[in-house]
């Protein structure tokens, strides 16, 4: 169990991160990461899958995460130019504390994305997220974000926005 204050801080962090991602506020989203951050979107729902053996949609260390954000900021990432209008709802939030003191936050999400770069189709993205949050200089930062889509192993359309 965690304190009400920790729970509330975790919830607020998730909402803030979602807002930055949904509104294509790339620099602000980028600033939420720790220097050792890992951003992982597996290509399977198998909980035993390993990023060292199996291909993922995203397995970014901090350097690749920086590249991902810079690409979006060039204005030439045509799969997100213009950025997809989108909104996500986050729910079923559960917070625990790990042995190393980080907050481990589990949540579900539903994200509606209007893919306006070509066909103007609505895409629905649904899944489970695990965040690990750490205090750095008094501010919560994410050191790990794992997003398991329910259709992770199915053919997916472009996923060039921040999920």
């Amino acid at each position, binding site marked *: 169990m965690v304190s009400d204050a920790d729970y509330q801080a975790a919830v607020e962090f998730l909402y803030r991160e979602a807002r930055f991602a949904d509104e294509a506020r790339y620099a602000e989203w980028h600033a939420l990461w720790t220097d050792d951050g890992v951003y992982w*979107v597996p*290509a*399977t729902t198998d909980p035993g899958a390993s*990023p*060292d*053996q*199996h*291909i*993922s*949609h*995203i*397995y970014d260390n901090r350097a*690749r995460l920086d*590249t*991902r954000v*810079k*690409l979006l900021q*060039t*204005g*030439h*990432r*045509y*799969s*997100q130019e213009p950025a997809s209008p989108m909104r996500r709802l986050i729910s079923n939030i559960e917070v625990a504390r790990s042995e190393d003191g980080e907050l481990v936050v589990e949540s579900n999400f539903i994200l509606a994305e209007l893919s306006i*770069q*070509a*066909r103007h*189709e609505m895409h629905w993205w649904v899944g489970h997220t695990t965040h690990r949050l750490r205090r750095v200089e008094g501010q919560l930062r994410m050191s790990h974000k794992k997003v398991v889509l329910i259709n992770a*192993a*199915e*053919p*997916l*359309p*472009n*996923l*060039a926005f921040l*999920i």
Partner: protein
Amino acid sequence: MSETAPSTIDYTSLVQSDRIHASLYRDPRVFDDEMERIFHRGWVFVGHESEIPRPGDFVTRTLGRQPVILARTRDAGVGVLLNRCMHRGTMVCTAPHGHTRTFQCPYHGWTYDVGGELLGVSYPGGYASLDKRSRGLLHAPRVEAYRGFVFASLDAKGIPLAEHLGPATRLIDRSCDLSPEGEVELTARWVRHRCPANWKMLPENDSDGYHLGFVHLALFKTVGSAQYQRVVGDERSIKAVVRDWGRGHIEIDWSPGYERPFEWLGNASGAAVAEYVDQMERRDGPGAARRRLLEGPAHAFIFPNLFLGETNIAIVEPIDVAESVHWHTPMFLKGVPQFNGRLLRMAEAGMGPASFLMPEDLTVASRNQLGLEARGNEWIELTRGLERESIDAEGRAVSHVTDETTNRALWQHYLSVMTA
């Protein structure tokens, strides 16, 4: 096999030597003809032997429109089974991959072994005589492999695989020979990327050296390395070439622009690389090993659906006239597992829905599909490089990497298949 009569479309008028007609990407009747003539008659890549190492291993795939199971049988052979119960037609296996002793139909319980043999039916008393041997899952009539790459044809007649591949086996060799043991392993599973465009745009784009500096401008602006400059720099300074290997097999060869080994492996260095170089030199000798490690793997499309994407292997899956799926997996090199992590990360960077390259390609492909609905000019020109391409000593057309030599080669083979 088709429920529709063959169309009477005159492909000779639609595919000309220097232009093609837009309806080839747009007309559902063309798509029907392609499924029948290209994917249900010819050789089609199904999967790799390393995906199913043990008896009982299987993966499910599609050949044109037909669901199949690629399975390792009890005698360690490789079979391509039609994924359809012989009783009422139910798909017997829906998992993308797995390991099993039997395929049991969920409808009435008919049970087949992993090689397709009918083991038994429920309540057999209802059949006066049932010849189990004739009720096994149907096999693709022809299955052949080259260096672990398994191809199948759903037509009992036709040319052997060796004739279909022709000299393009050397492209497969180029990739496999980078393994000290001469084998690649596709064991990382696949990512599948939905492409809202006709399937033929995928091989055309995979072998297009003209678009890189435009479609992928974001990446070149972000990662300003010299390697990329050699791809998108001044036209005369670009040394890479495109090449036509015949029968629709087409290549981009980056290696004339490479200056040192391992540019294809992101300029890998360190102890793991030194050990690898040792292994390669012991096998090939220092000169040949150095050349191989400089040239790197093939960047080539094997007609109609296999893409040797340098350190990735990709599959082009047609879904409908305006819908396809691009599959990819990293190409692991047997004997150097220390590179697997790097190859995984390279695969994620290059291909797939969240990668740094492919989302742009498929956005443009989708816009192509939309734009081709505009009538007025129904023709797509393929003239780029016609005046400067040449024929090399082996009879292959070769030209500047930005030229449409590859498109012309693909379409001329397409025409020969569609009018056969």
